[in-house]
């Protein structure tokens, strides 16, 4: 997982696979960032090819905790197969999803 930042926006590149085996690790890392005061977060799914329900749970929990703390989480660059996983679970309605990283960053301008 790569972490970068553009201005005060943190950008996280999500791994190729998120499943039950690495979901916990991802959750811990993201929680650490959020508790460290990352109020604006972009999760870039460009490299992600697969996310399991355990992975979806991580993003759902992150979305909830960021909303509580007044932060904002957006997702971008979802591959069609990953987007369909979000669609299937009805999660596309919950998240702000952008087509590219640039569009996601513009959201915070």
């Amino acid at each position, binding site marked *: 997982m790569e972490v970068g930042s553009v201005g005060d926006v943190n950008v996280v590149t999500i791994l190729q696979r998120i499943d039950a085996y690495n*979901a916990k690790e991802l959750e811990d890392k993201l929680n650490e960032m959020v508790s460290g005061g990352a109020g604006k977060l972009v999760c870039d799914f460009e490299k992600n090819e697969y996310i399991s*329900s355990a992975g979806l749970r991580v993003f759902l*929990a992150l979305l909830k905790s960021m909303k509580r703390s007044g932060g904002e989480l957006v997702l971008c660059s979802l591959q069609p197969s990953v987007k369909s996983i979000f669609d*299937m*679970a*009805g*999660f596309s*309605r*919950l998240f702000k999803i952008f087509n590219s990283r640039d569009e996601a960053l513009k959201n915070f301008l």
Partner: protein
Amino acid sequence: MTAAAANFLISLIDDTCILMVVVYCIIRTPFFYPILKDRAKPWKQLLLTLFFGAVSCYGVFIAALTDHTIISISMIGPIAGAMIGGIWVGAGAGLAGAALGFYVNGTASQSAVLLAGIMAGLYRLRKKDNPVSAANAAVFTAGYEIFVHIVLFFFDQARPQINAFIPATAPVSILGVAGFVFIFEKLVEERQTSASKELIESELRIASDIQMGIVPKTFPPFPNLPEIELYAVLKPAREVGGDLYDFFLIDCDHFFFAIGDVSGKGMPAALFMAVTRTLLKANAEPGISPDITLKRVNDVLCRGNDASMFVTVFCGILNIRTGEVVYSNAGHNPPYVYRSNGILETVRMPEGMALGVMEDISYGQDRLVLGRGDAMIAYTDGVSEAMDISFNQFSSERLEKTIETAATTESRGIIRHIMEDVERFAAGAEQSDDITLLSLTYTPEPQR
């Protein structure tokens, strides 16, 4: 230190090492740990006393071969015995060693062996319930050696030429006692770890049995309902899992069925699964459509769901008189209908979010009609995402092909056919997610 004294010390250390190896082998036998467990019981104290008494006597025996006044090696038994078994074991072992020593060579210095056991026992008492570590035992032994040699220096002038290098034998007792305590410590630690591991494993096994008991597993489930031929499998990736299915009659015409998949695996998923299944059953009532059932279950699941767990559920109600299925969906992957003429259709899904995510939302509903011999096949993503050893996924495309090659639309046959193909595909790769399949074939009597 002279060369003779050095050789002498080395030979004593040799003897101590042999003792340690023998003791190690004895305590590793299956008979020993039960004695060490609950060692405060009188008969176990007696056995430990005999054991450490024998160790002390071994020290006397070794000393008798070389120099009678060497008591360091005889003190290992009583001190280690006291540290491990308590004051009575220490005193008993000390008495045995001292008595034999006195019988063999008659010197009063042997009383130091008895005193060693008693002093170590007092030290043990002072530690109360805290275990004595090997380092503590070594420090105590060193202190006691110094004390003994000071006393002997003043009162036992009989063999001054030996006394000159007696302090050099202290490492033998320190090494011996520390080694003993270390070996025992490790044994107890190891057994406790394995005991708690076994406890967790047995609880998991019970949890697994309970969970498998939650879902109906008698097939055919309704021998006197000829209209329904149903089969289902649930195969968790671990002992317990987060998949579920259920089915039951709501009234004499309406048959409810559901399949679901909780996010994640293991115990948290299993608990969430059990709650979901219970809520579904409680909210599938006569006159209540599937979308309302899902809405009610969702609202309850959302309350106090701090872990952000969620569950995808597909559920439907089959009218067993007409073959019509009214269904609703909460984020689950679409089932298939395998028509009796061999055509496979993907069920059109109404929109709906997984349960437990957001309160107070509504769910869509749709309907389809099953003809005679048509099967409706629902599954969880553990099937389509089953992986082979190179992490390739089984995929829904392959699942569709597999269903189409089933020679039957009989549910039991279809599911067995799919499971065989998934197993062939995985080819021994570890199952990564729970696998659940439910198939329902509509089999009304032919109309006359």
